[in-house]
């Protein structure tokens, strides 16, 4: 088991693990709507399959939030 941080919370995962696999593992809702940062760097969607996570990496999922006026 390895520790990574997802949205600031520690998670135990099994390495090797790509961003795409992490999204599947966490059952992230509407992954096509999520923006991903790995260690505070924006991760291009096309690279999710090839980005391998390491122990102590931080992954942040940013979600679209629309509301305001109506």
């Amino acid at each position, binding site marked *: 088991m390895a520790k990574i941080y997802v*949205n*600031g919370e520690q998670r135990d995962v099994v390495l090797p693990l790509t961003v795409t696999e992490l999204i599947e593992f966490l059952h992230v809702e*509407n992954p*096509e*709507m999520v*923006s991903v*940062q790995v260690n*505070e*760097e*924006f991760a291009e969607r096309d690279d999710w399959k090839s980005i391998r996570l390491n122990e102590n990496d931080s992954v*942040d999922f*940013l*979600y*679209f*939030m*629309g*509301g*305001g*006026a*109506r």
Partner: protein
Amino acid sequence: MIDFTEEQIQRYSRHILLQDVGVEGQEKILNAKVLIVGAGGLGAPVGLYLAAAGVGRIGIVDADVVDLSNLQRQVIHFTKDVGVPKVESAKEKMLAINPDVTVDTYHEFLDSSNALDIIKEYDFVVDGTDNFPVKFLINDACVMAGKPFSHGGILRFNGQTFTHLPGTACYRCMFKEPPPPGAVPTCSQAGVLGAIAGMLGTIQAAETLKYFTGVGELLTNRLLTFDAKTMQFRTVPVRHRDSCAICGTNPTIDHLIDYEQAACDLKH
């Protein structure tokens, strides 16, 4: 330096008392020009607090009229205002709070044809809109015009906001492009707890006043998110992205874009 009247000294005394604001800070607020896009859930508290604070000139853009379903959270509009253009209803309350301020109303949609013209009149822009096409439009127009802005979004029990200054991370640095129309629900589809609008809007108003007075650290290169169910607040560090299509080294966007709006978003 402005000669404050007795009444102004009294009205703004709680600002003037603050060491970080003082008479100088209040004078900066009185000289400030702010554009609020959207006179809804976020625009309501922003408009009320900025008028109360004495922001000298406040523009409000909104093409809508007040609907009964707005009143659960859009606290600048009253029951008697149903059917009235939101910009007129908002202006009336802002002037009632503080006749010192000037309110400009734009009863129209912000789009690629008018955005730069309207924005150029102001020093700071507050995004209080409810849809992604306009959020991206505000981002792109502000980046192009070199204007700082506060981004805000709310949904259900959640809110998120950041402040952009030229050179810091923009909306496209975090979210490259709008989601497909209809893919992400808006408040009118998914609902929102009314007070969430107040929580987020007052953060945006505070950021605006911090910008003009130079107090503290703005929410730049940080995305603040909160979940009111747990009352957990979090700031996610975000970075300016060199490959960003609007603010990167080689921007590929050279004109404003009117993205398609989901049909279901166009009605209440």
